[in-house]
């Protein structure tokens, strides 16, 4: 999976979940930077990513994410493709 492909697929998901058509996904973004990103929308985000990439996160993985970069690394690893 090419990184740009990962970014564009995640961007589609983020825009849908946070209902914001101008949102751009980049590694440095954290929950504080995105309006409406709380523990509940976090669930929507995780479920949408699990569905899109057909992967499954553990509770620890979900709770431990610090920023979008870590999320991207996790998705790449779980989806079985390195950058």
């Amino acid at each position, binding site marked *: 999976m090419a990184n740009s492909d990962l970014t564009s697929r995640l961007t589609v998901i983020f825009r849908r979940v946070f209902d914001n058509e101008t949102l751009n996904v980049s590694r440095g973004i954290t929950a504080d930077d995105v309006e409406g990103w709380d523990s509940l929308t976090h669930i929507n985000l995780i*479920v949408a990513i699990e569905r899109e990439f057909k992967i499954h996160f553990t509770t620890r993985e*979900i709770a431990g994410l610090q920023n979008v970069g870590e999320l991207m690394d996790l998705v790449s690893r779980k989806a079985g493709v390195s950058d």
Partner: protein
Amino acid sequence: MLSLTKSMVTSLDYSELALAGRGANLQCLPKLRLALLSDAATQLLVPLLRELFRRGGFALELYEAPFASIELEVLNPGSGLYQFQPDIVVLLNSTQALRVAYFQARQTGSDFASEVEARMVSVWDAIHGNTAALVIQANYVMPYERVFGNYDLKHAGSWYDTVGEINRRIALKARERAHVLVNDIDAVASWLGRRVWFDERFWDLAKSFCATEFLPAVAQNITRISLAARGRNVKCIVLDLDNTLWGGVVGDDGVEGIQISAHGDGEAFHRFQSFLLALKKRGILLCVCSKNEHAAAIRPFEEHPEMVLRKDDITIFVANWENKAENIKRIRESLEIGYDSMAFLDDNPFERDSVRGILPDVIVPELPEDPADYVKALAELNLFETTSVSKEDSARADLYRAEFERRSVASSFSNFDEYLASLDMRLDVARFESSRLSRIAQLLQRSNQFNLTTHRYNEGECEAMMRDGQCIPLYASLRDRFGDHGLISIIVARPRTAQNVLEITDWLMSCRVLARGVEECLMNHIVRQCAARDLEFISGTYIPSAKNAMVKDFFAKFGFERVEETTEGSTHWRLRVADYRELKTYVHPQVTDQAFAAEAL
């Protein structure tokens, strides 16, 4: 207006629904005030509920209580819950929260169940004491952990056994309280699969009580119960015959050639007919609409020994070569019900699409290709939700059939008056009483057309009026020589002695008994009562709805003068009692002494 049609028969995807719920336009829809109280997080459920209620024709006004504050909200008369003045209070208890309490508890399983039951009942009763709202209580989804394996069921007080015990108690206690309906969330979860229902990650992280993909099913269950409580019920099923009610084509294969035997190749159809018969006994009308020669189509009902449905089970039988939508229109006119309370079942996708296209409000579910799955498909759609059962329900199908007999009698009388006189109609008029409250509330929810103000009082509110000395809540039941129509009309009036006025706030009647002289009989009676009590005026209001245009000029017919019209189209009317001229009627009133009694008079 979108009816419940679409929300009932389309599949429900979580993210689509959640998105649809965000931008929904709710203007023009009647409001419904719903309070949501839970020991789990419910924020994800909210947009789904909004969207499903919108599809059902209601703008949802929602009160979300703070997380896990059910008792705090309910026991405090000054809480946000009561300030909100809900129509419906949804109580959503989660198995996960119960699990925490169970494993911390020091009591035995049975004591624990008693305590949970007592707390729940005190919540219901506190709500009942503070508001007339309907309560929709979820039961618990049966847990997936079985500490003893299958032996859990044999071991009294095990976690699994205790949840089952609590669910049983919820059902029993709810039966004793008309204002409490059960949201059988365990049935929803079991259908979908408890293995995937519980997503423990999201409970741990955010107290979400089930996997998000199943939240729409939870929201839909709550919506269905609420809409049923608002009178959105399926009242009539219109059935195709060939390959729907039986296998094969009766016109080609003959009565002997169709498949309907309880064993062998007809078993699926036999099962389907048995399910339909159970619905008919519950009060849902069955009609036939088939492209067939009438004589051939009716023969299986009369002659085939293994048919479950007989001719008498069918309220209206239409078999001809005309367009089915046209035939359904005629059936609707005869029954005087709304399209949105009719479901059409046909194995042929062309006929289904054509009816959907012409009559979009009729509920037309997809039927599976395999007739073996017909009942299962209908069960999954849960089209026949109801919130009460009364004697009138089970007699309804027979009453309607008697009505059609009555109409054929009518055609043999040259003079309609002569016919009405021959019916020997007797109208019992009485004040609301406890034993009739369930039927009274049901009629209040269901009457749309002959309904002057369309106030949807629930059973609790009816009970309050019954006990209110300042209120005259009346019901009327009609009998004639063909049978008993049951309770068919409701009038609520309030004497305003200071203004010398009797104010009629509600007047509604079942359309089954239109044009019989029932309303004339009732108005004559009311005017006489006012005259006897020296009340000088009677006033009344008409509030237009989507369906009640037929009573727009109701008061004018009785000689009331229009005194006011609001910009919304509501009209206010007034009659000087001394000016009233009695209208002719062949209905004989049988009035109990207390019927009109109110302490205020």
